[in-house]
């Protein structure tokens, strides 16, 4: 069971603002999903190595040739706010 404090902790890690109603709902929904998911804990797989990826690829290197990159104006065109040829963000108050 994931309590409200834990939901708020995970939301902070995920940079998500949740309303009190969402915290309440999330606590129940996440607990419900984890109850199913936790069944894999019953399998003894201590000797099994994990699979992060199924593609059997080693040393996937391409030629080290310079390629054109996005022009600055194009890269900034969709930004919500720009300043001095860069992305403008609020101050990290910290």
């Amino acid at each position, binding site marked *: 069971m*994931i309590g409200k404090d*834990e*939901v708020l902790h*995970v*939301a902070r*890690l*995920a*940079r*998500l*603002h*949740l309303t009190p109603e*969402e915290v309440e709902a*999330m606590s129940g*929904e*996440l607990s*419900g*999903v*984890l109850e*199913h*998911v*936790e*069944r*894999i*804990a019953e*399998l003894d*797989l201590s000797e*099994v*190595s*994990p*699979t*992060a*990826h*199924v*593609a059997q*690829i080693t040393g*996937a290197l*391409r*030629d080290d040739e310079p*390629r*054109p*990159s*996005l*022009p600055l104006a*194009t*890269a900034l*065109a*969709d*930004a*919500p*706010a720009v300043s001095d040829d860069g*992305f403008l*963000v*609020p*101050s*990290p*108050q910290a």
Partner: protein
Amino acid sequence: MSIGDLSAAAAAEAVRAGELDAGELFAHYRDRAAGEEASAECSLNCFAWLGDSAPEAQPAEPWETGGGGDASYEPGAAPLAGVPLAVKDLFCTRGVPSQSGSQILAGYRPPYSATAVRRLWDAGATLLGKTNQDEFAMGSSTENCAFGPVLNPWDRTRVPGGSSGGSAAAVAAGLAPWALGTDTGGSIRQPAALCGIVGLKPTYGAVSRYGMIAFASSLDQAGPLTRDVRDAALMLRHMAGRDPLDATCTGTREEVRLPSAEDLAGVRLGVPADIEGAGVEAGVLAEFERSLALAAELGAEVRTGVTLPHAAHALSAYYVIAPAEASSNLARYDGVRYGIRAGGEDAERDLVAMYTATRRDGFGAEVKRRIMLGTYVLSAGYYDAYYGQAQRVRTMIVEDFRRAFEEVDFIVSPTSAEVAFGLGAKTADPWSMYLNDYFTVPMSLAGIPAISIPCGLAGEGEGLPVGLQIAGPAFSENRLLEVAHALELALGFDGARARVA
């Protein structure tokens, strides 16, 4: 025969032979799609964006080159000449909205195009429109879409499946000759099944993921949604291939051929042991068994009771791995470089407040749920118990299939345990929605190719489509397509009822 009755392959041939004008072909689908979108009461809502006219071929910008392909054809010789293509919203298409069904990317027009799309353009296909989907491809009903749910053309009170629901419904309704989708845990196969069309998830790595807005990178794979198996082969042939811009993309081992098999002599089909216990609807099971009997008549050897001992744990492993990868991939949506940014006093004063408010406003409920789930299973103290264990289950699933394919050539099952369900029927309980992926997720975790073909109708009244899933070893696409083609011919499924007037 009218334009709308032509398969994509037949339309391409007619254009190349000078028997059909590409502009007329585009106008036919554009008018049907626009007409359907404009129908006020209950539009199928397949499209997030529709082109006005057949777009001029776009030369690649300098920064778009180097992505492999770069095929060039003599004028008039392009193999997909002028055939309109519907593209799932999450493929980046330069200058055209690419929003992945999410408010957080509302209005986003990327400066480059996905390799899979560029390859199809290079082969002559034209962009008809962008199709609605579950937000960031998270869902099995296309109800989690910022631009409204998509309806099933067979019955507008029901869902088309998901997450490529707009692509599937558009093809089934005859609003597009074919469509591009993506499959992470079943998002091509399940909507294809629920809409009565063909959907192919290729082997992981056959098609470039470059320019696909990522959900779960070790699982995401692009593939075709089409009216028939030959069209699926034709699209795959022109989208697969190595891409230096996606290091996991190796292309197919051999060129994809157009299938022509009419029998299944010598083909060993394996039926997993646990199907009847998996909550399959009686009507779906009946159509599945009828398909097996037909396969046997065509000469296939049907072996029942094939064991995939860890398949029952695939869904649990998937719902750890996919959200974990999603929570990382979706960290990029922070209101800085593109997409929306939340306003308000706090968000304007403080960076973290801006991040959290932007993500609050931009993400829908299911996406928030998966980000939370993924962050939780990756967090300190839980990582090994959840994520590590899920990766070990994945190893066992890969091993299960390897063993099974020593005994049989292909595994067959229903694609979905049930026919299309009603809108809202599964939105209250996340796990009931996730169960839709039961038969499709094991192949995704193993990275192997699987196709869904329509095999009959089941359920009340006139019935709703049932999908048959056929899965093969990695890079067995050519053989898989031959088997699907022979079965498709024998099944003789007629999808005409779903084509809107």
